[in-house]
């Protein structure tokens, strides 16, 4: 295999693609090449388990290859691939419909932030544990009194020299009841101006004083939790970045979160219903056209929007490689999540009464899932910065409009 990192020209990339293809052919079990159900997905962590022996094998092979985190440096368990190589790998994985061997916030959010802001010891300790699936992470940002106005957060971490004493609570901690560690924004200087007294702390959820309660949502799911901290002692070595400078770490991390959310739906290797396929199943056709003109119009509008979004994702990648700056990355969370909501609403209308069942035998699993997904879609434009906050960011950072 060619040493990673040296593929710039198209010929080299083609060779790399062939190598990837061959390796995947030999190493990705057949069973891991079809859509994954939510229950089958491996998230890692102390309580994580594999849905099958094949899932374990697939994860271990990808882990050993470094392709669980293709772009991370090899010394931390990554693959050391360039952006273009990682794209080739992603395309090849998508081509064979390969499941993701492991997913989670450690891989998507904390890892990239640690690579940028963590010290050597933190990188050695936490990055490898993420890649190896040993630790499952959740995020502690929002508080009951600090949502869109995140910088007003109150969860207190008192500097006690060799440790911090943490008191307060975090809300919307996604799947915190299944996680091992939480990365948190905490207030370390109550007297400083809003953003300036905040630090970024890593907290072991097995520590005494940490408790987590699930919150039931309109979707019937309880994937969000509230996590409480009662005199929790956190060793000083778990501070990421400088004391009182956690806001910049958080901002970098938010960028990863928003990018992630904007991509949801565009590459989900799980079985999901898309409007034009649902239309064939649930709507009458007349001369090859959807007979309901209003719905036909909305399906076309949705497909056109998704093609435009897909092309814009592609453009942001091209611009990144070419070193061109544009506003495109900053609009993706807003347009991507709004589109996801549009899709959910459209699916319900296409499916009619089959799209509004809640439970039982009268509806197929995918119908029930679609209804739940619709109810869950409302979180998309709220979590990770509401649509309104996204528009504020565009107005300020792209259009440079005066701030009140």
């Amino acid at each position, binding site marked *: 295999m060619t040493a990673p990192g040296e593929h710039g020209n198209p010929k080299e990339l083609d060779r790399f693609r062939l190598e990837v293809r061959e390796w995947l052919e030999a190493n990705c079990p057949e069973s891991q090449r079809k859509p994954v159900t939510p229950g089958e997905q491996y998230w890692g962590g102390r309580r994580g388990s594999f849905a099958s022996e094949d899932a374990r094998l697939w994860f271990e092979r990808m882990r050993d290859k470094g392709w669980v985190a293709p772009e991370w440096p090899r010394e931390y368990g990554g693959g050391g691939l360039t952006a273009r190589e990682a794209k080739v790998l992603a395309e090849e994985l998508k081509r064979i419909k390969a499941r993701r061997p492991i997913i989670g916030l450690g891989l998507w959010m904390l890892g990239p932030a640690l690579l940028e802001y963590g010290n050597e010891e933190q990188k050695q300790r936490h990055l490898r544990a993420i890649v190896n699936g040993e630790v499952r992470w959740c995020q502690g940002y929002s508080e009951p009194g600090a949502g869109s106005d995140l910088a007003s957060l109150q969860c207190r971490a008192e500097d006690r020299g060799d440790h911090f004493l943490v008191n307060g609570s975090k809300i919307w901690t996604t799947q915190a009841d299944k996680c091992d560690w939480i990365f948190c924004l905490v207030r370390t200087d109550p007297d400083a101006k809003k953003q300036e007294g905040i630090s970024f702390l890593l907290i072991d959820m097995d520590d005494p004083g940490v408790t987590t309660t699930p919150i039931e949502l309109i979707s019937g799911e309880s994937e969000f939790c509230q996590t409480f901290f009662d005199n929790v002692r956190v060793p000083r070595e778990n501070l990421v970045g400088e004391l009182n400078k956690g806001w910049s770490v958080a901002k970098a991390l938010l960028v990863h979160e928003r990018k992630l959310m904007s991509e949801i739906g565009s590459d989900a290797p799980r079985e999901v219903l898309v409007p*034009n396929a649902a*239309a*064939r199943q649930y709507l009458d*056709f007349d001369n*090859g*056209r*959807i007979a309901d003109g209003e719905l*036909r*119009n909305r*399906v*076309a*509008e949705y*497909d*056109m*929007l998704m*093609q*435009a*979004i897909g*092309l*814009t994702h*592609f*453009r942001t990648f*091209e*611009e990144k490689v*070419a070193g*061109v700056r*544009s*506003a*495109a990355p900053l*609009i993706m969370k*807003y*347009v991507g999540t709004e589109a996801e909501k549009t899709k959910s609403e459209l699916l319900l209308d296409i499916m009619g009464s089959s799209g509004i069942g809640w439970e039982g035998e009268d509806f197929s699993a995918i119908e029930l899932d679609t209804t739940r997904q619709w109810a869950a879609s409302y979180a998309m434009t709220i979590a990770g910065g509401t649509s*309104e906050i*996204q*528009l*504020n960011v*565009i*107005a*300020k950072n*792209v*259009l*440079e*409009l*005066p*701030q*009140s």
Partner: protein
Amino acid sequence: MPLVLNEEQRMLRDSARDFLSSHAPVAALRKLRDTRDPLGYAPDLWRQMAEMGWSSIILPEQYGGLDFGFTGLGVVLEECGRTLAASPLFASAVLGASTLLLGGSEAQKESLLPAIAGGELTLALALEESHHHHPTGIDTRAELRGDNYIINGGKCFVLDGHSADKLVVVARSAGESGDREGLTLLLVARETPGVTVRRAVMADSRSAANISFDDVTVPAADVIGEPGSGWGVLEPVLDRGRVAIAAEMMGLALECFDRTIAYLKEREQFGVRIGSFQSLQHRAAIIQAEIELCRSVLLQALGSVDASPEQLPMLASLAKARLNELVKLVTNEAVQMHGGIGLTDELDIGLFLKRARVTRQVLGNTGYHKDRYATLCGY
């Protein structure tokens, strides 16, 4: 297809912007309007555009062209949109030249394309017959009599038709209105007996002719492509036109939006600059998001003309539909955000508003292209 301009294309954009801002600013359109200029564009400007190669940008070198590709054309048209520069570039160098390029015989190409490239010969596409884009809705008849075709019928919304030297007439030699089969494209000199051209002045101060054909005699040698099989040439020509006009629309949207943002940063009410109001910020940010989506769609559509024509029909409809909606949104918000001054003729915003309305009707409104996209998707 790269979605980022290369260095040559960026240089072309910069030089086009420099040239147009000094030689064809919005004030130039205003002057053409106020003097009721009979031609509707400045011949000097058109000559200079031709000298710079803009009129030959998509043509192969063998016909005197620059062979710079459709993306290069898009770059130039976008800049023309920014200053609302009036010229036969779209009607002649895009629609006219593409018809000959895709459908013309070698003899036709050799005799006409170099003159189009040089700007000495201008063409216009005589297609529409009703107030809505309906490229198969052709009732104008072309009847073969001996070695000639006899044309009878009427055309409307022929962009730059009053000034073009020759018309590409879409006529029917067989079948009925609505059929794709039976269409024949003919090259007709505007001065031919029986051709009556009435100039229609449009809201954007540019011209679109209404033309009637009464027993117009055209030699059969002036048919472009196969008689009765004109659709095979016409459809890709229209798609090129849709992408090209979309590029111009992008330019007008960007310029109008830039001017509006500048106004939000300077206008004060209630003791603060109005751009600090969140209701205006969010509406502006939504426009920015739409612009970013349109940018990607436009680049892909432009690139597909040369690189992957099989994708062109879908991308052309996607681009035209989205740009139709973008220019409406931007120009409406521009007037509203400017407030009272936005209603005045003195401010240029009204000129962008009007140009937007005309371009929206060129080669298909949003409904037309949504319907076409759905059909191409198979539903």
